[in-house]
């Protein structure tokens, strides 16, 4: 039987691109420049005449600009579809919702797999400059001006999306009315850097990586798949893995082999194999590196003399990759600057994945918080 047709209240949407930086390239945190730049994005809903209803959504490590709605021919709607649409948390009848991709990625924006003018149109590979979360936001700020948005009503995202949201508040507090950082942190911890490093080592240890010049030969699939498998373990919780797989076997009895006999092994291999078809190995290196450099601790989240946006900080109890204490550190920083902040630790067993699973709770919080933010204009 064929799969049922995918459904989204938004119907079919398209990813668009914004090209800039031919003459005025991005000046990166490293001091290097990047241009021309293409940034992929999607929009849902309409900008109000007073331009006060724009919302920016930002994605996690391997996400993309396709937050909601359907792409023709694809089996699933966008990654946050249950939160974005008419009557939903980010209500497209009230808000102009923008989701932007990141530079360094491989989902329609300029990254290491993009053609480099200096290399005569061959992919950048490792000649692509190392980028930071601030560089990603700087590119998004150009998109904001292109779209004619004076200020975001809110900037929100989970995990690395939350880091970008915080970075927005740090760089452009006068253009951000509120921030909804979810399952994220003010700075990457040694444990988080360590998991990223293991993923990068898995990619770089694959002989097919070829120092990053693999574009004529094909991806370092084994290394990238292992990186993804490690990632998936960190996104789940002990309890969610128990519930999802327990010790179930794919076949009856042990085969006394090293095949994927346990369901959890089959799942990880399947996820790894799927991932290499949609994600560029060098992008994995660059984007994880950007997260590792992320650090807005101390007073770096605040700009002297600028207003402090309102905050809604959400964490999940079983998330051990971005534990609740990291969200509470964000809250503490905002409180110390007398900012208006709401914090919720949602009881969930889904681990870090919870921000892509626990929609009822997030809807209740985001809906009311956005309404209040808009009312306070």
């Amino acid at each position, binding site marked *: 039987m064929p799969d049922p047709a995918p459904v989204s209240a938004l119907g079919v949407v398209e990813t668009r691109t914004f090209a800039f930086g031919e003459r005025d390239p991005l000046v990166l945190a490293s001091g290097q420049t990047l241009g021309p730049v293409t940034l992929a994005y999607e929009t849902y809903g309409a900008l109000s005449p007073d331009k006060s209803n724009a919302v920016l959504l930002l994605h996690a490590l391997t996400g993309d600009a396709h937050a909601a709605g359907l792409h023709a021919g694809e089996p699933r709607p966008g990654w946050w579809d249950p939160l974005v649409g008419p009557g939903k948390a980010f209500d497209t009848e009230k808000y102009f919702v923008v989701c932007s991709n990141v530079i360094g990625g491989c989902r329609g924006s300029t990254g290491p797999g993009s053609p480099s003018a200096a290399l005569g149109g061959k992919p950048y590979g490792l000649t692509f400059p190392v980028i930071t979360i601030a560089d990603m936001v700087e590119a998004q700020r150009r998109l904001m001006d292109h779209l004619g948005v004076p200020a975001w009503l809110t900037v929100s995202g989970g995990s690395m999306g939350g880091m970008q949201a915080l970075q927005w508040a740090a760089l452009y507090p006068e253009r951000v009315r509120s921030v909804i950082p979810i399952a994220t942190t003010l700075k990457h911890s040694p444990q988080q850097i360590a998991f990223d490093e293991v993923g990068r080592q898995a990619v770089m240890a694959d002989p097919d990586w070829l120092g990053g010049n693999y574009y004529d030969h094909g991806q370092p699939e084994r290394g990238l798949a292992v990186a993804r498998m490690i990632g998936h373990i960190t996104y789940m919780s002990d309890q969610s893995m128990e519930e999802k797989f327990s010790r179930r076997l794919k076949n009856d009895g042990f085969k006394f082999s090293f095949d994927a006999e346990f369901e959890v092994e089959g799942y990880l291999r399947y996820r790894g194999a799927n991932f290499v078809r949609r994600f560029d190995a060098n992008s994995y290196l660059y984007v994880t590196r950007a997260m590792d450099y992320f650090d807005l601790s101390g007073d770096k989240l605040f700009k002297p003399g600028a207003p402090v946006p309102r905050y809604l900080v959400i964490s999940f109890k079983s998330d051990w990759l971005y534990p609740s204490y990291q969200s*509470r550190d964000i809250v503490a920083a905002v409180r110390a600057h007398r900012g208006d902040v709401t914090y919720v630790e949602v009881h969930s067993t889904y681990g870090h994945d919870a921000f892509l699973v626990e929609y009822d709770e997030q809807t209740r*919080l985001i809906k009311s*918080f956005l309404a209040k933010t808009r009312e306070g204009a």
Partner: protein
Amino acid sequence: MSVRPDHAAIAALVAPGARVLDLGCGTGDLLAVLVRERGVQAQGIELREESIYQCVEKGLSVHHGDIESGLGEFPDGDFDFVILNQTMQETRNVAFVLKEALRVGKNVIVGFPNMCHWKARVDVFFRGRTPVSRALPYRWHNTPNMHFLSLRDFEEFCAEKGIRVLAARGLTARGPVRWAANLRAETAVYHIARGDNFSL
């Protein structure tokens, strides 16, 4: 909309437009009253997750956490009023919670059920049972209250610890009690601040 007598008493003590922190704010009913009637800048702290959602739905800013672990990053004197309504007697370490409240708040308002209301005394003296009443609705085995006190107990405690009592209100479900409050009040509301010999 009818306002609970303790909420009305607290609203009367809070200055208009004040910066207010409600410790153990529950579903935010008191803060909503204070926002509506006194135009305060409201913040709450609450332990129960479901209550947090209801606060956010009322448009309140609220923190999901345990007041017994302290008010950490709030600077000294950050709030004009800190409120502990029907919360203090449920905390394990009353002295610590009050000390933190008096640190971050220039003023503190405490509301609690009166253990020495005459009906409670009847329960103890004539019926030989732990009191169960409108203000103390729980049985001995399911009460969230860790501490049982009267108005006189609280005033003695304040005198001992150098806490200034700026106002005291005894209340029943019908409204304020004018005389013999320690006997006739079901609940009490106190407005306190650090005194000269403050020593918590």
